[in-house]
């Protein structure tokens, strides 16, 4: 009868560790190439706006790069994409259509926040600011 194996299993489970991952004491095991937060690396971006056109939920807006940043020559219009992380569905369409592969991908999955977040800071940090080096650098792994 199947009753016996179930009983044995239940008894075994009483004495073993719970199967739930005790977050935040333990880290959840996430794959290194899981689809997490992404942002544009402005040292490669040319300002073509393709990512804005293709984005399914229209989460990307093109904004002018503010004064004081050294913009590479290839970005003639001096615009850059800002991803609104609350609208983004993390489908990575922007990553795959970019003609210069300018998007940096990470597996950052801790995306909950109570204030609106976007990629302005992260993207601007990849540019030199009048004499300084890029502050944050590329924290992710450039996959393609």
């Amino acid at each position, binding site marked *: *009868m*199947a*009753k016996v*194996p*179930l009983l044995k*299993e*239940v008894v075994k489970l009483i004495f073993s560790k719970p*199967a739930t991952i005790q977050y935040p004491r333990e880290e959840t095991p*996430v*794959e290194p*190439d*899981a*689809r997490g937060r992404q942002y544009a690396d402005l040292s490669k971006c040319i300002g073509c706006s393709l990512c804005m056109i*293709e*984005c*399914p939920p229209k989460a990307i807006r093109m904004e002018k790069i503010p004064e004081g940043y050294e913009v590479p020559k290839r970005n003639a219009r001096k615009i850059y994409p800002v991803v609104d992380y609350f609208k983004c*569905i*993390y*489908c*990575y*369409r922007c990553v*795959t*259509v*970019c*003609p210069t592969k300018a998007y940096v991908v990470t597996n950052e999955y801790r995306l909950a926040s109570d204030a609106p977040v976007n990629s302005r800071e992260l993207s601007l940090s990849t540019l030199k600011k009048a004499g300084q080096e890029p502050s944050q650098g590329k924290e992710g792994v450039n996959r393609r």
Partner: protein
Amino acid sequence: MTEEVSKVDKVVEIPMTVEIPVGPQHPAVHEPILIKVYAEGEYVVKAEAYTGYNHRGIEKLAEKKSFYQDIFLCGRVCGICNAVHADCYVRALEHILDKEPPPRAKYLRTLVMELERLHSHMLILAVTAEIVGFDTLFMHMMRDRELIMKAKEIVTGNRVLADYIMVGGVRRDLNTEKIDKLKKILAKVEPRIRHYWRVFEEDVTLNKRLVDVGRLTPAQVTSHGLLGPVARASGIATDSRYHDAYDAYAEVPFRIVTRREGDCMARSLVRFEEMQVSLEICRYILNHLPGGEAVPDERRLPRRFPEGEAFTTVEAPRGELTYYVMSKGGVNPYRVKIRTPSYNNVINTVPFYVGHTIADVPAILASYDPCISCMERVTVIDSRRGIRRKVSMRDLARGEA
């Protein structure tokens, strides 16, 4: 009924009819439906269906977005079967473009779809067990289902929403390291599934609640257009993977699973055997992946589509899912029509509840496999006392309403 003395000259007998809405309030569901069940005592005498809680403005929205944006839109119609929706839509686009994906991409698509079938069946079987009162089994199955979700994350990059399929192939490839990880996961999952299968076949409670309940004859199945495991459990051998033989299904070891009884237990057992077939297919794919490219360069795909129309079918875990895509040239589609299997399975089976007890209704509904994790609250209207009580689906199923 007792008669009042003197004053009245007639007594009107009001049978205790209880109107029980088996209804969804959860916005996250794909096909929420309100089934009003009129019961006399314990037996159902009439049932009605009311829909519209979560209307898919998706078909209208799809006409406003481009073909490629619609791939992501269609993948979000259902949380559980998102890869099959995207696959069906993309295959329709490929027919319009007259383009075929490379063999490696076909195998990878099949892999993801079979993984989805595995975790979807585990979910509905766990929910069936929970509804009849077997909570422990529900918890155990959900724990083992996490292994499949991990496998999906390894392949597609996300546990649930696999934005994996693109016109001309898939969006990521597998390397040997990932294939090894996947094989290990499948080796862990297989004995667990066999264990649960044995539990379903032998356990006394499950047998009492599911055998001989919700019987459907083959004629009822075809005339009402029921699909998927519901049809196959009544003997109708229909499976889109056989009819259309799309992607890699012509080459992998695939067989249609049918049973003759047509009751709830038969549907659950059909799902178990389908999981077995899925495991075999996944293992075959991991061992026999053809070489070559699988990922198209998305920047080179055509933006404008030629005129044309296509009708594709796919075997979602719940049944046959059909997509109709019509293009009149240009960047946006002219018409996208999605007919999901729950559409037929849930709405057309409303007349079949009559004659069963109220406690059977959730069990039968769960065996048709709607997206049921939403249907948590049920209102019991006691018409005699005029009281409304909120009762959870589980209590209803256990007869504590």
